[in-house]
């Protein structure tokens, strides 16, 4: 069994099992926790809980005006690499085939060169966010090993994917194997670090929205 066979076979199977099992463990572990009961009457004009939740989820996609200037770089840069990651993950034909194999879902692919360009921009944005984490004294103080590991395991699939697409540095099958292995590492780490925000962000924002809208606070 060579490296590519190992990556496409046992490594990917193990990683997907950890990813699915770990994500559901975290998700149900949170959703089934006892909830604090709020016995107060809702403030007059307060939206329904679901509406309050959805409004906060949407509202927090962009910072409030008073914070906009201070968070402009991190907001824009985050949008760049999140959209870039979405284009790369869901736009490239080989990725769609991978998802189709798992879920049966499929959609038209974007041109490979366009996805390659999105990948390059994404990688630059990821480097920028790492630089900020390292250079900003407060953010650096707040950063732990898990934060750097999450960054590394997000950036590695992008970097190895670009190298494989460009046939740079090694033979294609070696680069493809490293790319698949880097994705496997990402999937294994996903449930246990802050990457889990991709699933939990909606629930945490929604819970905040329900709590505050009940009290008539628009957040």
């Amino acid at each position, binding site marked *: 069994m060579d490296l590519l066979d190992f990556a496409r076979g046992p490594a990917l199977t193990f990683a997907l099992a950890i990813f699915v*099992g770990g994500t559901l463990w975290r998700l149900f572990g949170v959703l089934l926790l006892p909830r604090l009961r709020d016995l107060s009457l809702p403030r007059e004009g307060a939206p329904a809980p679901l509406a309050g939740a959805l409004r906060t989820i949407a509202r927090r996609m962009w910072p409030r005006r008073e914070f906009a200037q201070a968070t402009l770089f991190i907001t824009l840069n985050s949008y760049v690499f999140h959209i870039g990651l979405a284009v790369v993950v869901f736009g490239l*034909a080989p990725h769609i*085939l991978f998802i189709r194999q798992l879920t049966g879902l499929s959609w038209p692919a974007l041109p490979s*060169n366009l996805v390659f360009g999105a990948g390059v921009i994404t990688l630059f944005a990821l480097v920028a966010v790492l630089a900020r984490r390292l250079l900003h004294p407060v953010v650096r103080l707040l950063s732990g090993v898990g934060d750097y590991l999450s960054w590394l395991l997000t950036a590695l699939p992008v970097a190895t994917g670009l190298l494989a697409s460009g046939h740079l540095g090694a033979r294609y099958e070696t680069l493809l194997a490293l790319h698949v292995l880097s994705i496997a590492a990402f999937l294994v780490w996903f449930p246990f670090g802050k990457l889990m925000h991709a699933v939990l962000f909606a629930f945490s924002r929604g819970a905040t929205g329900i709590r505050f809208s009940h009290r008539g606070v628009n957040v």
Partner: protein
Amino acid sequence: MTELLGASLRERGISRRALLQYATYMASLLALPPSAAAAMADGLAKARRQAVIWLSFQECTGCTESLTRSFSPSLEDLIFDFISLDYHHTLQSASGEAAEAARRQSMQDNKGKYVVVVDGSVPIGDGGVYSMIAGQTNAAMLAETVEHAAAVLAVGTCAAFGGLPEADPNPTGAVAISKLVSGKPVINIPGCPPMPQAMAGTIAHILSFGTLPELDALGRPRAFFGESIHDRCYRRPFYERGLFAKSFDDEGARQGWCLFELGCKGPVTYNACATQKWNGGVSFPIQSGHGCIGCSEPHFWDRGGLYKPLSAGTTDVRKVIGIAAVAGTALGAASAALARQRAATNAKES
């Protein structure tokens, strides 16, 4: 046998010009500089006919068919003027003890100088009883024949990497030739079947320069196996544009779009099919509408299915994912239940 090839070819009406043309063709196939063509022609003219013993083990004769029926009139036919094929099951007229006597006679007459070509893998399971010739196991015949050989050419994927006989579950214990030969140079010319130009070019290189051609990490001549099918595929622009055939008879297939989604293994397959092509340069599998199956790579039978896209995993993960989902949900529910129990205990205590 001792006559120089140049004199022999002149006697057969093959002029120096024709020999130069052949040498130029071979030099270009081998990616040698133009100046090498004359040196190659001189080397061939001064060479003596190379004794070749061809052993066929666990094989389908497709390799021989490929080499002898490449196209007609064949430049590859010329190679048979350069070599003395002293033993070959399919092509020789002798049979039985006479055939084996011819093999041993050639080994004795050309001790240390003959080349052994092998097609087919060798079964070593259960003492090698699954394939025997003239009362000898394949492994024993190989060991006897290569003992005084100058070099060994493993022709076809079965000989080079084990091929179909070695595919899971490999009931006969089939192995590649390189696993059984030590102390001799082994050149792998894989393919199912291998390209005739690769075979002819490798022999021409050995005859002309007296050295082995440059090989890659898998023992394959770089001149023929240095680039992937994908890199030289005429459908590559469609891959770049994201245009893929979804089935073998859809509009995309008719338009000649990329066959990646239909399982083409071109990106991880190294061979010269896309450039040299088959049947005199007429076509190759992808041009005929079928994806590359990766036949010149090790274990190509066991790499997750010929029609499964390269980016998909090689195993069916649905069962594993199902078990993981159930386990994860149960674990999450158990964690929450524990938290509730702890909260209730704390409430009672306070």
